[in-house]
């Protein structure tokens, strides 16, 4: 769960798909930790938005995910690794406005197709890998300065 190198701190969290009651919890927990460290408010906002969108995608489309947070004085790195259907055409999914959200999801205010593009926009470094039938892995880094 934790890696014992003095300069970094890491912690993992889990997200359960379809669990709308807890949706947004991991994002809030990570945000709280960054506030406790006195991280710049602008950076916290970017992390909050990116993490929230990633979390909601897991809740809506995947089965479950493990989130690993790594903090160092230089950067915040988050890996969201899910077990789920994967994304057949990642390039398409990355386009603004592309969404496969159901009518119910849209009624709940999701499905604008802005999540992934927003994550990318808020990250300094972003990587997405997906294997159909297995899952999707997002890597998000934001530099501390």
């Amino acid at each position, binding site marked *: 769960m934790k890696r014992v190198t003095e300069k970094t701190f890491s912690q993992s969290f889990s997200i359960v798909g379809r669990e709308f009651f807890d949706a947004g919890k991991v994002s809030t927990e990570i945000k709280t930790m960054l*506030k406790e460290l006195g991280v710049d408010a602008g950076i916290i906002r970017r992390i909050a938005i990116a993490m929230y*969108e990633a979390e909601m995608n897991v809740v809506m489309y995947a089965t479950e995910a493990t989130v690993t947070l790594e903090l160092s004085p230089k950067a915040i790195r988050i890996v969201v690794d899910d077990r789920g259907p994967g994304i057949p055409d990642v390039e398409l999914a990355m386009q603004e406005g592309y969404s496969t959200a159901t009518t119910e999801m849209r009624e709940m205010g999701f499905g604008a197709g802005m999540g992934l593009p927003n994550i990318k926009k808020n990250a300094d470094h972003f990587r997405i890998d997906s294997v159909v039938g297995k899952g999707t892995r997002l890597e998000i880094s934001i530099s501390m300065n």
Partner: protein
Amino acid sequence: MKPDFRSIRIDTERCTGRMKCLRICPTQALRVRNAKAKLLSDRCIDCGECVRVCPNHAFVPQTSSFSDFSGFKYTIALPSPVFYSQFGKDVKPSAILSALKTVGFDDAYDVACASESVSIAIQEYLEANGTPRPLISPFCPTIVRLIQVRYPNLLDNLIPIESPMEIAAREAKRAKMHELGLKENEIGAIYLSPCPSKMIALKNPPRKKHSFLDGVMPIADVYPNMMRALSHSDHTNGKSEIRGLGLGWPIVGGQVASLKAEESIAIAGLTDVMRVFDEIENGKLKDIQYIECHSCPTACVGGSLTVENPYIARGRVLRMVEKYGQEPCQDRQKIRDLYQKNFFSLVGRIAPSPVQPLDEDLSRGIQKMHRRQQTYELLPKIDCGACGAPSCMTFAEDVVKGEAEADECVFLAMKSFESMSTNLLDVVGKHSKKIRGNIAS
């Protein structure tokens, strides 16, 4: 003007270390050390929960009393609209206002009408400003402080419009200065408040500016004399000169009801407020125009310095709105013109006031976070409070910051006692064998 003025102080004489306050504090700002409560003022948001819960009244609101006003030539009471809900059924607001002139004030001035003006100003502001969304009401000082301390990203969402309390104080003073030929500092304007947090407007306003208020007195302190004054005659009949939707401001939804903003919501209670603020910080709720926010779960009728049961008070407010609310007290166009002349505007930014971080240096902070987690793993994770911290996690943090010793946790102390005594038994066992052997030989 101390920058860290907090509207609540602990009277350690009265505190018996009951720990009720520990758990109730929504920002984990309290500890009990040596059987006395201690306030970490960087975390305190003046919500008054501790004032309400302490059986010994050890949390003393830093409000004003009559003796503070002896220097003024003339005093004006400005009762929060909550005040109108504190007395018997159907007592008219105007009767309450005139009774105030018999309990120690030279005059009394209605604030509900200022609330109506302010709601017209908010309306104008919403129409003129598309972003950021949602805008947040700035009238509960605890909410403003919560944003300064925990949600600095939302400071720009606070509407920069003056509170009804300030508008009323300014207007009341101007009228009397003109009428009596007095100077501003010869007139004392005293707000009769449902909560201690209003004191911040006076002592340490978030936007550094002049306040027209000279004092904030608890509603509860004026209550007994008012009851006496009102018992003399019948105050329930006839027309009330005090009217308008401003009368509804002290209950949840009162501000929203006085606006014509389609997408607006009202939230009360810090748990729900924080949940909504987290959502806004995550980039959500952009389709909402205005959020009315109250720290107290039943809004201002449930403030910590009120007397009446908040649900009864709420019922009375609803009745008053029904009876006197529909006819406005202000000319809408006149208020719009005043708005254009910046009569309601607040200038200057509100500075963030973040909680002291784990460490001033980020790498050391990260190391401390690591050590906090290690310490936490040793604890029973049952948040028993016996250590004087509200939760095992806050205790671990206190240990890492050097503000508490690990063995102040009874469980850790027991563990180390156990291993100590096992060692001791070992030693005793070995020696007694030897001694017994010695005797035998």
